């Protein structure tokens, strides 16, 4: 059952082969057994989960089940969840029990899914290795010394180690795709505005986007069907008709034009990654797709642009964590300034502080035009590159990350090296485009390699189709780490 697809699990539930309570118990057992070693979850609450499972069983019995009813889903601890500790991986929110549900959580609840716990993450989603969590690093199931990627490292680990059949993540510059690649699972960040940001604790509002992480493209499609949809409480949420993301899964890929950006297939990509990517592209050609070279000339600027804009927004978004109304407050203080200084000094970790400082700096009087405005201009150029490329191709493919998962501690002392692991993913985020990662083999130390697929706006169904067809002829997505 642990390796079952969502469809298979739904079938078992529908046929009463297993109840949601039994299924949930099974996964909770595995979480409680493996979590001490992998640290994928910050909060697990068996009783709360089982209560939802019992409700799901009643729904199933009443014949009101949907595709995800009764199925355990792990929730990234960035989504406010009523009655659950919601920490965002930070000491600052280490005592914050949310009084409300995020839009995404409401949708899973309405679908009858069972929340099996809140997953670990880089503090406030800032990081690419999950080493920035107040709750300690998550370990990669494919190698206990390897990072799982970040910031949705807990969710990626949970799915890879089969502690949950699927999980939610959020992606600001690669936070779904890079950990999915590092942990050998599938993950998609849909078009900006498709998944409600209401109740998703903000890092960089113009980039943040929720999305699913699961074993296969088909599972991602089922998850997206639940997660997406207009939410009037989020002004950036798009008013579009609901779509069925599974609708194109079975389409043949004959004639699919795959653009390969020459800037991505250049120096920087490790040879083990390159080998796996080339093999995957061969597979696509065998499936009837054609590949052609495209150019994204401004994409090398995406990391500097990202590291101006995301910290700028973050510096402001994180101002609300001041110890006044909720969350952590320092114990001893002289006056208001001292309370602010100590609360924020003690409540935030070093990477969060670094980005608040960068963001404050780039927004400061006299620097704003040179950094923030300039970065916004380049952001538009990056989006135009993609627009141009999509006149020539249907999807863009390349590596999700330049290397396989690196070792714990390997890059934690060098922020710029760490930032470069998002070099391929941040451009799509800046353009608001959908991007996904699918496992396509293994590189050094038997660590997974992810293929990055970028689609045009609202082309998630086509991207899932491309990934699904690949997964019909390969079994990388079914590989399970020996734990």
């Amino acid at each position: 059952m642990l390796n079952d697809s969502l469809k298979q699990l739904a079938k078992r539930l529908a046929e009463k082969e297993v109840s949601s309570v039994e299924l949930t118990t099974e996964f909770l057992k595995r979480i409680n057994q493996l979590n001490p070693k992998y640290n994928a979850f910050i909060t697990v609450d068996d009783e709360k989960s089982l209560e939802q499972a019992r409700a799901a069983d009643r729904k199933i019995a009443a014949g009101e089940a949907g595709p995800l009813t009764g199925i355990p889903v792990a929730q990234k601890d960035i989504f406010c969840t009523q009655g659950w500790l919601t920490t965002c991986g930070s000491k600052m929110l280490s005592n914050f029990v949310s009084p409300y549900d995020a839009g995404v959580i409401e949708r899973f609840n309405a679908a009858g899914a069972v929340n099996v716990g809140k997953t670990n993450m880089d503090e406030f989603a800032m990081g690419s290795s999950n080493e920035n969590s107040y709750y300690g690093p998550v370990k990669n199931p494919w190698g206990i010394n390897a990072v799982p990627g970040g910031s949705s490292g807990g969710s990626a680990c949970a799915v890879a180690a089969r502690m949950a059949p699927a999980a939610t993540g959020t992606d600001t510059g690669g936070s779904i795709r890079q950990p999915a690649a590092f942990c050998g699972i599938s993950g998609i960040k849909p078009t900006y505005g498709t998944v409600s940001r209401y109740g998703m604790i903000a890092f960089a509002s113009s980039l943040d986007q929720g999305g699913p992480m699961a074993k296969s493209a088909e599972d991602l499609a089922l998850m997206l069907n639940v997660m997406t949809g207009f939410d009037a409480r989020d002004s950036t949420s798009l008013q579009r008709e609901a779509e069925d993301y599974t609708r194109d899964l079975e389409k043949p890929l004959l004639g699919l034009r795959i653009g390969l950006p020459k800037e991505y297939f250049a120096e920087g990509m490790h040879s083990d990654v390159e080998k796996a990517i080339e093999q995957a592209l061969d597979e696509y050609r065998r499936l009837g797709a054609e590949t052609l070279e495209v150019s994204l000339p401004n994409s090398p600027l995406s990391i500097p642009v990202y590291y101006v804009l995301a910290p700028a927004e973050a510096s402001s978004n994180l101002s609300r964590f001041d110890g006044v109304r909720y969350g952590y407050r320092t114990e001893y203080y002289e006056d208001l300034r001292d309370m602010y200084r100590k609360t924020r000094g003690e409540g935030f970790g070093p990477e969060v502080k670094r980005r608040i400082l960068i963001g404050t700096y780039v927004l400061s009087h006299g620097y704003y035009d040179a950094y923030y405005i300039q970065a916004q201009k380049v952001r538009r150029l990056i989006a135009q590159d993609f627009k141009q490329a999509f006149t020539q191709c249907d999807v863009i493919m390349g590596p999700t990350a330049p290397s396989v998962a690196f070792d714990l501690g390997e890059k934690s002392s060098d922020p710029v090296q760490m930032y470069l692991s998002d070099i391929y993913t941040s451009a799509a985020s800046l353009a608001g485009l959908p991007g996904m990662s699918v496992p396509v083999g293994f590189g050094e130390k038997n660590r997974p390699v992810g293929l990055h697929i970028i689609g045009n706006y609202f082309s998630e169904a086509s991207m899932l189709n491309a990934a699904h067809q690949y997964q019909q002829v390969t079994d990388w997505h079914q590989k399970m780490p020996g734990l």
Partner: protein
Amino acid sequence: MQWEIVIGLEVHAQLSTQSKIFSGASIAYGAMPNTQACLVDLALPGVLPVLNRGAVERAIKFGLAIGAKINSPSIFARKNYFYPDLPKGYQISQYELPIVEGGDIRIQMGETEKQIRLTRAHLEEDAGKSLHEDFHSMSGIDLNRAGTPLLEIVSEPDMRSSTEAVAYAKTLHSLVRWIGICDGNMQEGSFRCDANVSVRPRGSETLGTRCEIKNLNSFRFLEKAIEFEAERQIEILEDGGCVRQETRLFDANKGETRTMRSKEDANDYRYFPDPDLLPVEIASDWIAQLQKTLPELPQTRRARYVSEFGLSAYDASVLTGSRELSDYFEATVKLLPAQAKLCANWIMGEISARLNKTDMDVVACPVAPETLAVLLSRIDDGTISGKAAKTVFDSLWQGEMEQQVDAIIDAKGLKQITDDSAIEQQIDDVLAANTQLVTDFRSGKEKAFNALVGQVMKATKGKANPAQVNAMLKKRLSD
């Protein structure tokens, strides 16, 4: 040296929406602390702002009323600073591309009109309230006010005296109430003024260093604060010193301003476009539709009162001081169109004085415009004298005799004597009884004539028409 005072005002008008500018919480005044603060107002993790259409609508109406440009798109920006009553650590306001740009307000200074140009008007949210008393060396925070929609209206430095500043503030105050976008309640903080004051040698073209005086919540404080501040700056300059640019607070008890923070201590607000809110696009047909809902504006009515009714510019501006007063005038004059001046005099005189004395609003005036019109028509047709009309008015104000004007006139016997022969009879008697006065008048003492008129009026118990008495007496004495 002769000094010139230069004043610009920033006014925060609280918009009369039901709910807050970015959340659904109520903005009703006076609720228990923190009972009108929802998740969004509390800035919980993950919550997002959603713009209140009603606030945008009111801002557009204001822009239309002052002949300004309505920007589309208009952008919301974050103004970042830390304070406990600012829950998000930033205020959502507008910086570049405010919703309203330009326009002007015409103020009436005596018989002359002066144009005050507006720089801009932008939408923003109010902060909460910090309470420093009753908490034993701690502070209390009330977030009921946080997120209340405000329109910040910024003028150019076009005013040259505290009187002009007050006239501008009053005209603006009347306008926002007139078009129904703000209740104008100054005690509750619905209309707050900050004044930028500087002085310069008369004739100079360059502006002096200004000081901003915060939170002037009455017209009287506005006037006093500006006068004190200008005096203070002139003293510094005359002593050879330099005015420091700073923000000052007005101490109403002492009648003086004092330093709040200097320019050096000013925050770098790090404004940037709020990524949680999209640029606001305003469709031209929405603007056209709102234009249609605007009532006739005070400046239009002012001009009409002068051209249509022949009122003085000053009278026209007093009558359009508030929409309610103007509506009262309109309702009265509609029934008595030929006597607009009489209507105006009575409304600015008797009615206003009585309302002021009893601290009553014109909408609560016990004498309805229709009743007043009947009363004034009785003056007009000579039934009663102006003096007798005041007696009738007293009865009307008291609600006597079901406010039937004619019944009151009859009951009090106030009908004017207009019959020539009746007056002639009285004149005969008075002349016979006052030969000395007649002699005095004939020897050139004009005052004696007035005394004789007074005697005739007295003899008729004030019921004779004084003009008629005057004319008849003059004729008799010149015979």
